[in-house]
Structure formats: structure tokens, C-alpha cells
């Protein structure tokens, strides 16, 4: 390295190169976890995230991660790990799934591995977080919305607990998990996959630090943060100096007949390039599993902000400097107090908060914000469990990843069909019907999208998904916590709401009876669950949607000709043939009436 180059201020070329190298490390971790995990929710559903945190406990790099997992949380957990464990050594690994210690919810097992150079200097923390199929809850589901507190929830909680020393398992912890987590072999396989991914990250970072020099790597981090901060500043400066807010409501649950009203207040200060999201005007913690954790409350707000500002701003501690999220303690969308339950902290209220933030931000102007995404997690993607008669009655428990459509209309595009829920950002992979039916005694009878279920808009929301599933030759238990049965995903800037989620039991005689939104069912052979996910909300007035796009939706049987006329003001026959003159007339009369 010649003196001229290293003395010069870090330029955009070098920054890009070094960042690409760090991203490559995270991708290697991701690949390892995805390919080796045992739970469907990880190896098919891709419900996991990998990231790198600096020695100052700041989030540096994530790649193809679930937004709700990583924006804040890995940093909090790294900080807590270092506070609780004063003598961290190479070869250590710590498990954190505690909602009170920086993690998201108990169903997400986070593994933290320190990266310590040969001089003994603490350099980075590698974080791998995955949604495990079971975490020892009192019911066979990691999303237990009806849990009144952490005791009823029943999860084994690990508040930053050492699980490896000298690169070897702490066997007592493994034994403990195997006694309390359903399908223990599957859990252990996942645990190995988490460790494998984290160790890949550690190894690669050590090699990179040795190669380029630790100081240079640390310097890079600072420059990268500055760069990311500048990108965020540039975006905030485009916003008007204004304060906006939006309210929505989580569905009613046991003890909360009216639902839980939620509010986000967003204030843009373009002069100072600062954006503030205030979540303090929300209710206190509730006696249910839907409370947010500190990490998911912060992150839920930030996902809404990032969705609203458009592409291209790196999500890391640098860009986060310009976002201030105000939380209060003992708030359903704030910082929980032990022992409240946060079992569904990555979905439910979190999605409502993100939705409120991005819908509020749509009021900043026509090129900002987003409509609301459909709510989760519908019974199309239930937790199923039971005994598999084809596999010597082995117990199984897993989450289906089917039917989660839900994408919201944006200023730029229609709702992404498979966004799953807003905190997921569409990262989740769908199950294959054949693979599900091979692995579990299940039959997927129906798996399709539903016409006329989209939130109408200039950019429409995604339609609902319908899934009918049931057991084959055996009994099967299904559980879900499906928000969006009562309060749908709302549209923004004149866009319409998406269809609501709902679920039914089909009896042997074919009749349908409704099932609770937060609950489950035990099915006997011949019975099935018929479930619908939410449609996403629309962005902008449906009367402004290009008539050709409406006609295309009709041709594709996503929208009926009747709805095209009544909601979009577009006259089109069932084959998608557009009547331009009639459309112009109809739209003109609507505009004058409205």
C-alpha cells in the first residue's frame, strides 16, 4: 500500500470495494444457514437474518435479511452481551432470545459470536437470528397471541446465555433445550446451522482483518456510516417541514373487545435533516402476547421510514443517526416490562406500527410513504403439529409458509404479491405443496389468489391468498394469530383497504364454520381449514389507475369487470377488452361527483 493512497481521505471507490467484501461475508453466512437448517420456517420460509455489528455495538452490514429482525436489536444484544459477560473469549457463542434483553421475540433464537483478533482486541460481533419451529412454549406455536404473560407463554428464555466455549457446545444448555423444545432433533439441527453460519462469519472477518489491516477496516466502518448518513440526509431534505400522524387498530382479542388503537406521529425537519417517530401516545402493555419489545418497536418505526423514502439508503447505524424513535416504558408499542408476553412482537402490533408510519408519511406528498400491508400471520400459514403415522408416529411441528400475499400499493409499484407482512419485506420463501405433503401428513387442497380482494388504488394492493389445508389419515392441530380479521390494511392517499383475513373449518359434509382469529383447531381426517390472508391497501385514487392496467387485471381475473367499473371507473369486458370512450366518460362523471 503506497503512502499517497492511505493518506488520502477514503474515496468512493475504496468504500464500495470494502463494503462489497463485508456484504459477501454476510451472504456466505446466509447461504450456510438457509441450506443447512432443519425447520421449514428457516430452510424454506427463510425466516432468519445475519448481520455484523461493530465493536461499538453499531449495526454495520445486513444482507437479504428480514427488516424487522435486524435494524435494531442485534446492536442492543451485542451491547447487553458485553455488559453481562465481562470476559468474552474467542470460541464463545451466546444465545439470546429474551424480549427483555434486546431480542425480537422468544421464537427468534439469536446467536452472537465475538470476533476477537490475534492481539486480543474485540473487533466485531457476528449475529445470526432465526425463527425456530418451536421454542418450548406451552402450546405448539412460537406465535402465541393469547398468552397473558411470559409464564403462560412458556418459552425457554435465554437472556444472553453462553452456548459455546472454545468452539464447543456447552452440552448442559443443549440438553436443557432438548428436554423442553418440541422435535428436539430438528431444533438441534437448526442450532448447528446457526452456529455454522456464525462461525463462517467469524472466520471470514478474521481473514479480512488480517488481510487489509484492522485499523483500515474500522476506518471503513466509520466512512460507511458517514456515507449512509449522507444518503439519509439527502432523502429527508426532500420532505416538507411537517408533522403527520396516522392511527389504526390491532384486532380485538380476549379482554380487548374494541381492539388496540395504535398511533404513529412522524415529524420531518428537513433543515436539520432529522426525522422523528413518536410512539409514546400508545396504550400500556396488555395482558396478551402481542406487546412489542424495545428492538421491534424501534425497528417497526424504522421499517416504515425506510419503506417510505424509496430505494438506495443503506440500513445501518449511520443512516439511523437521522431517525429518532421515541418510546416509553410499559407501552404496547414500546419497552416491555418483565413478565409481559411479547410472543408475536415481530408481527401483529409491529406491523400495525409500521403501517401507520408509512401511511402517515404518504401525507408528506405523492412520492412518499406507502399504503398498509396486509396483517399477519393468517391461518394460511398456520403452525401445524401432530404425529406422522408414515414416520413411526414421529412428532412434528412447523409453520406453513403459504398464502401470505399482503403487499401494499406504493408510489412506484403495485403491492408485492408475496410481501408476507410488512416487517418481512417479502424475504420469506413459499412452501412447495409437494414438499409440504411429503414432509407432513397434510394435503394442500387449494392455494390461489382471490379476485376482487386487493385494496384498490392508482397502485393497487396485492390480492388475498386462499389456502385450504387438512390432515391425511391422522389428526392434526393448527394454530395461528391472524390479525386483520376485523381491521383491514388501509389505503393511502385515497386508495382503498384490502380484504380482511378470515378462516373457517370445513367439516366432512363440506359445510364451513368460522374459526377464531387468534386460536386454533384440531382436525380429524377429512376435515380442513379454509383460510384467507389480507389483501394489501391501495395507494392513490383508483380512478387515477391507468385504464390499461385495470384491463390487464381483469384479463388476468384478478379484478372482475363489475369491480373495474364500480371502483376504478373502467369499462372493460371479461376478456380484458377496454372500452376507452366509456371509461373516459365514466371517470369524468366520477371526478365531478367526488
Amino acid at each position, binding site marked *: 500500500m503506497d503512502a499517497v493512497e492511505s493518506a488520502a481521505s477514503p474515496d468512493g471507490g475504496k468504500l464500495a470495494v470494502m463494503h462489497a467484501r463485508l456484504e459477501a461475508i454476510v451472504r456466505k453466512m446466509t447461504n450456510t444457514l438457509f441450506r443447512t437448517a432443519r425447520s421449514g420456517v428457516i430452510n424454506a420460509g427463510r425466516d432468519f437474518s445475519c448481520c455484523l455489528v461493530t465493536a461499538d455495538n453499531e449495526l454495520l452490514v445486513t444482507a437479504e435479511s428480514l427488516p424487522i429482525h435486524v435494524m435494531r436489536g442485534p446492536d442492543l444484544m451485542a451491547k447487553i452481551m458485553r455488559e453481562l459477560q465481562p470476559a468474552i473469549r474467542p470460541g464463545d457463542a451466546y444465545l439470546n432470545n429474551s424480549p427483555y434483553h434486546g431480542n425480537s421475540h422468544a421464537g427468534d433464537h439469536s446467536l452472537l459470536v465475538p470476533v476477537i483478533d490475534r492481539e486480543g482486541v474485540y473487533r466485531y460481533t457476528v449475529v445470526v437470528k432465526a425463527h425456530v419451529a418451536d421454542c418450548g412454549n406451552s402450546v405448539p406455536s412460537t406465535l402465541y397471541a393469547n398468552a397473558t404473560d411470559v409464564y403462560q407463554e412458556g418459552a425457554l428464555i435465554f437472556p444472553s446465555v453462553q452456548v459455546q466455549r472454545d468452539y464447543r457446545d456447552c452440552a448442559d444448555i443443549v440438553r436443557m433445550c432438548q428436554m423442553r423444545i418440541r422435535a428436539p432433533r430438528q431444533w438441534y439441527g437448526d442450532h448447528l446451522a446457526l452456529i455454522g453460519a456464525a462461525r463462517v462469519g467469524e472466520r*471470514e472477518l478474521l481473514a479480512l482483518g488480517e488481510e487489509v489491516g484492522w485499523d483500515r477496516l474500522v476506518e471503513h466502518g466509520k466512512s460507511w456510516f458517514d456515507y449512509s448518513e449522507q444518503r439519509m440526509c*439527502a432523502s429527508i431534505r426532500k420532505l416538507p417541514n411537517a408533522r403527520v400522524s396516522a392511527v389504526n387498530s390491532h384486532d380485538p382479542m380476549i379482554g380487548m373487545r374494541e381492539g388496540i388503537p395504535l398511533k404513529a406521529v412522524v415529524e420531518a425537519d428537513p433543515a436539520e435533516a432529522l426525522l422523528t417517530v413518536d410512539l409514546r401516545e400508545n396504550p400500556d402493555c396488555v395482558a396478551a402476547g402481542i406487546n412489542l419489545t424495545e428492538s421491534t418497536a424501534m425497528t417497526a418505526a424504522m421499517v416504515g421510514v425506510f419503506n417510505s423514502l424509496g430505494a438506495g439508503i443503506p*440500513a445501518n447505524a449511520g443512516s439511523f443517526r437521522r431517525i429518532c424513535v421515541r418510546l416509553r416504558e410499559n407501552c404496547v408499542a414500546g419497552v416491555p416490562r418483565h413478565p409481559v408476553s411479547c410472543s408475536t412482537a415481530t408481527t401483529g402490533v409491529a406491523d400495525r406500527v409500521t403501517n401507520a408510519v408509512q401511511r402517515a408519511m404518504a401525507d408528506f406528498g405523492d412520492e412518499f410513504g406507502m399504503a398498509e400491508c396486509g396483517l399477519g400471520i393468517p391461518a394460511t400459514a398456520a403452525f401445524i403439529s401432530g404425529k406422522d403415522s408414515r414416520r413411526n408416529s414421529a412428532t412434528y411441528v412447523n409453520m406453513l409458509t403459504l398464502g401470505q400475499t399482503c403487499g401494499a400499493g406504493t408510489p412506484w409499484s403495485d403491492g408485492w404479491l408475496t410481501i408476507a407482512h410488512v416487517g418481512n419485506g417479502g424475504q420469506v420463501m413459499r412452501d412447495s405443496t409437494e414438499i409440504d405433503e411429503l414432509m407432513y401428513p397434510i394435503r394442500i387442497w387449494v392455494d390461489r389468489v382471490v379476485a376482487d380482494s386487493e385494496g384498490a388504488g392508482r397502485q393497487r394492493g396485492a390480492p388475498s391468498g386462499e389456502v385450504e389445508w387438512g390432515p391425511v389419515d391422522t389428526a392434526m392441530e393448527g394454530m395461528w394469530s391472524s390479525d386483520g380479521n376485523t381491521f383491514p390494511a388501509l389505503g393511502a392517499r385515497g386508495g382503498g383497504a384490502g380484504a380482511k383475513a378470515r378462516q373457517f373449518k370445513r367439516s366432512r359434509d363440506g359445510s364451513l364454520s368460522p374459526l377464531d382469529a387468534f386460536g386454533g383447531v384440531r382436525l380429524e381426517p377429512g376435515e380442513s381449514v379454509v383460510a384467507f390472508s389480507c389483501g394489501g391497501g391501495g395507494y392513490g385514487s383508483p380512478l387515477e389507475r391507468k385504464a390499461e392496467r385495470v384491463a390487464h387485471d381483469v384479463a*388476468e*381475473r384478478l379484478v372482475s369487470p363489475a369491480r373495474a367499473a364500480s371502483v376504478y371507473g373502467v369499462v372493460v369486458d371479461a376478456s380484458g377488452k377496454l372500452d376507452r370512450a366509456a371509461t373516459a366518460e365514466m371517470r369524468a362523471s366520477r371526478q365531478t361527483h367526488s
Partner: protein
Amino acid sequence: MSSLRLAIDTGGTFTDLIVENESGQLSLFKSPTTPSNPVKGVLDVLRVAAEGHGQPFARFLGRCTSLLHGTTRALNAVLSSNTARTAFLTTEGHPDVLLYREGGRSDPFNFLREFPEPYVPRALTWEVPGRIGASGEVVKPIDEARVREIAGELREKHVEAVSVCLLWSPLNPAHELRVGELLAEEMPEVPVTLSHQLTPMLREYRRASAASIDASLKPLMSDYIGRLESCLRGEGFAGRLLIVTSNGGVLDAATVAAAPILAINSGPSMAPVAGLHYARLHAGTSTAIVADTGGTSYDVSLVRDGHIPRTRETWLGDRFYGHMTGFPSVDIKSIGAGGGSIAWVDDGGLLRIGPESAGADPGPACYGRGGQRPTVTDACVVLGYIDPDYFLGGKMPLDPAAARRAVEDCVGRRLGLDVDAAAFAIVELATEKMVHAIEDVTVSHGVDPCSAVLVAGGGAAGLNSVKIASRLGIRRILFPHTGAVLSASGALLADLSATFTAPAVTSSANFAFAAVNNCIASLKDKCREFAAGPGAGAVATRVTYSVEARYERQVWELEIELPVEKFRGAEDVNRLVQRFHEEHQAVFAVADRDAGIEMLSWTARISCRLHEERSQSTTMAGEMSAAGRVRSVRFGSPERLRTAVRSMDDLRMGEVVRGPAIVESGFTTVVIEPDSSAEPLAGGGLMVTLTPMRSGEQFSAGER
């Protein structure tokens, strides 16, 4: 008069031809591709070659015993949505297999891109009543009357091709076969693809996607192949017309016309075949990283222990936004970084390369055709790597001032760098992207790149391959004499090969000996049939068997070569399980040695070698360069170095060219970095060796 073998690769801009005579001498020819009429491009390049051989066209063609043809025709048709009006028949209740795909999204906060349209629209999708279950049992019989009705509706909609993918057809094809029969009765003129016949693999999306892509290509590809064959025959060609397949082999033209998805990756799939050959020949190794640098993309594959890598996850277009072929193909990672990739600076002052490319028109700024934005090629001109007067052997003079201007205006000024430093940053970032592509295919598969040789193909490979190797710790870089036409040269080396797959789901804990052995026996029969049919007269035939296996409850399989062709007892199963553990450890760095494995699909791959291997040498038609020149070139440090320029043709065997140096030929320019040296290879080509000084210093510093 001696016989000739021909290999023709039709690319986006050029059609490449290699002619091999009986003594193994190769001659290379290039002619522009005519996208509207690719048959013409093939005939044109053949005429050029006939002239080059000083022979009348018919006489020249009459000498050719075989023509091996790689073509991007199928791929381009898909990418430009220029395929047949295709209908999709699916199981009742599952109409959205193609719409939903497998989920996933690459950039969480980027909502600029719309969700992709399905390969076949919902408007052309029909649900077939009937259901097969997971054990192959008939849950609900097929409704034949409804299928006949559907055929009527297909006619009304003027459908030109039909794909059929019903759930569980690989396990029980009865329903798919019956639909095929009924359609053949009702609409015999319309081509149909049944998914289980094309690829009897589980995962309905992949099978449906493969079947739909295949069906949609049938009218077009049978037309193209038919016309090509009749034109060639008409001009006097009496040899065998073979088409390069995605799987790294060749098959008779008629076979490919009947299943055109076989040709979706035709062309690029041959680069690793060629790379392996040259690595063995010149470097004595069968582990090689094979890279092909094109104008818009950089294609990389890893050949490990002589195995050509294969995948079933090939995307046409971008991952998550394009279509997955779901069809076995040579595994090639392609990134949008080539000579034509555009460099730019974003709002935050970060340098970016691509994905936008200047393409062939207007091309890089230095082409002088109106391009204003700097490309990697422009940066190479600025740095002195490319001689503007000797590009492509002097056939195309470049405008160095335009290159400087573009680099300075669009990058240098925005980053506060002088033009040299800006150009260097562009090449360095492009290099880094290519390095990552290589890391993706090596490190993630547990292979240390240091242990491999880098085979660098493509016209622009020489510009930064030595730099790439140096970043990865690769010691040897091989520039084959046919590097500029690597895919065509691979076709000359390719075997006639086919893959047969059949499902037999079982586990190590409860191994179904009879079912598996029957399955393998049926595959063996198919191979025997192939060997006696298309493979008759082969000089050597090889069959390998493998299985897609995974740990219990995993959903992604690894392909494991079978230790035996018949499982006789627990010991045989154990050997397979051990192989799986080893492969899992090698690929993912972990193995769960206490866990059992599950097995899904069994595959036999047959390769028939059609000709004896010959030692090749090249005669280049390129013009001589002005050898012995000296240029001022910018390498790692800001001061330019006086650098010797040598002509490839002038190098003597045994001579060592020490870096810094530039070696030029009519087809390519190779930059020999300061800490490396180059030697010509017997028969043509160049081997560059990195002197271990630079990396050695770093390692010893680390170890002290």
C-alpha cells in the same frame, strides 16, 4: 481430403466458428450475428471459413463430419418474450403455481420494481379436476370430459403450445399422461410438454416452469433447427448436426427440437468444459475456476476434481424477478460486470459499476459512437492496458480522448480524483465484483481459491484477470489459445450426453432396497438404450449415478454420487450416508453425523465420447502487431510504468515475460501485472504465474 469438425457459437454480437482438422489444428473465425435471421449468421461464418480454406463452399461443407452448435436463440426468445402463445394446465385448486413462484425478494426497501408477471398468464391457465396424493395414490380421478372441454377452450384462445404440470406426476404420471393423450386427440397439431417427461422432479413450481418454458419454445426452436438443418444440407453438409445443451454436452438436433429447454443455456455451458480441458492439459489439475468475460457479463463456474458443476436453480433474468428454469444445467454464476458495464457515482459519492451496460451500441465512449458514460473498457484505455490503435488486432481504432473525457467527467470530478486514479478505481471495483463472483462459487462450496487455477476466457479477460487472481491468492492464470471463443472450443470437446432422473423417496433409517434398485435399474435401461441409439459408435461411454439427498427435515438437497449401482445391504447404504456427511461438511462447513438422510430423486448421466481426443494447436488469422513497443501504463501505484508490449505470436517457447508487460494478440490483450510473469504454452495460449512476493509478504507479516 481430410475431414473437419466444426463448432459454432452464436452470441449476441458475433458468431464464432472453430474448425478442427484431423491433426487437431484449429482455425478461428468470427462473423457478425444477424439477430433477425441467425441461420444466415451461421452460413456467413461458414462461408468466411470456406474462403479461409480456399475452397468452394459445398466442397468445404462436404468435408465436415459434424457441426456442434451453441446458440442463445432459446434464451433470447424467453428474455424478449418472443415465444409461442402458451397455455398452462395445472391441478384443480392450484392455478397460481407460476404466479406465486417460490417467493423471495432481493432488496427489502426497494419498491421500484413490480412483482414479475407469471411465465404463462392466468388468462391462459386452466385447472384440471383430479388429484394424486403424496404416495402416488389417486385421491380424485381425473375428469376426462372436462379435459376435452378445456381443449376446446384452448383452440378458441388460439393457443400455440401447452404445458401440463399436475401435482405428484413424477410419482404417478397417469393423470398427466391421460391429459397428453386427450390433447393429442383433440388438437394434434399443438405441441405439448408433460412436466414429468421433461423433468420428473418434485417441487411443482420448478417443474411447471420448466414445462412451460419448454412448450413455449417448441414452435420457434423446431422451426429454427429445421431451417438450419435444411439450409446446411442444401449447401452440401452431410455430417451430424449436434446442439450444445445447458448440461454441458451435445445432443442430436432433432432431440433438442423436441425438448428445446435443453438448449436454454446452450453456449455458456461449454466454458467449464473447455476450462477443465485446458486446466488438465496445461496445469495438470482438474480443479479450475473458469471465467468468461463478455461485454456485459462475467460468467464464472467452479470445476472441482474434474466435476462440471450442475444446478437446478438457473434463473433466466434476475434472481426473484426472472423465471427459474427448474431444469438441470451447468452451474454458472453470471454477474453484470463486463467490459461494457457503466461506471457512475451515486448521490452519496459512492462509485458504482453497472448493472447498466453500454452494450454494442453506442458502446463504450472510446468506440466513438456517441457513448458519453465511462465503461470498464474506457478505464482500461485510460490506464494504457488497451492500445487504442491495436484493439482487436487493429480492426477497430478507439478514441482515447473520449475515454479520458468520460472517466474524468463522470467519475474523476465527482470523486475528486485525477483521471488515472479514477480509471484505476473503476477497474478495481469491477475487479472486486468479479472476485466476489468467484468467491461465491468457491468459498461457499468449501473450496479455497488458492488451490485452483484460473482459466480466463473471453475477449476482455486479459485486462484484469491477473489482478483478480492476485486478490484471491490464485497463483496461476491460464489464457487458452481459444480463450476468445471459449464456448465454441468447449463444444469441440463435448460428449454426447443425456440425463435420466426418476424419483424414489426413501431414508437411510428405512431404506427401500427394492424400490431404489428398481429405480436405478430403470435408469440403467434408459442409458443402455441411449448408448445403442444416438451413442452408437462412441469411442467411450461412461455412466454415473447420483441421488439428491438431505438430512431429515432439510428441504434442500445435495447431489451425491452413488458408491454402488445396486444396494445390497446396510453397508452400501452406510457408504452413501458417509459420502453425504463428507459432502455436507465440504459444502456447508458442518455435518450432523448422528442424523440420518432422506433421498428423493435418482439420476443417471451418460456421456458418449464421439471422437478420439486430439492435441490441438491454433493458427491465428490475426494480423501481426507492432512488437517491441513500449507504453506508459498505470498499475497499483500512481506513477506510470514504462511497460513492454509483446505480441503473443512472437513469444518463443520457454521464454518468460516478466511483468510489468502487456501481451497482445489479434483477439485479446493480457495485462501482466508487476509481480507476475508469463510463459507461452505449447499449441498456443499463455500461462501467467504470480510471483509469491506480494501475497507472501502479507502472509509472513501475519504469521510472525
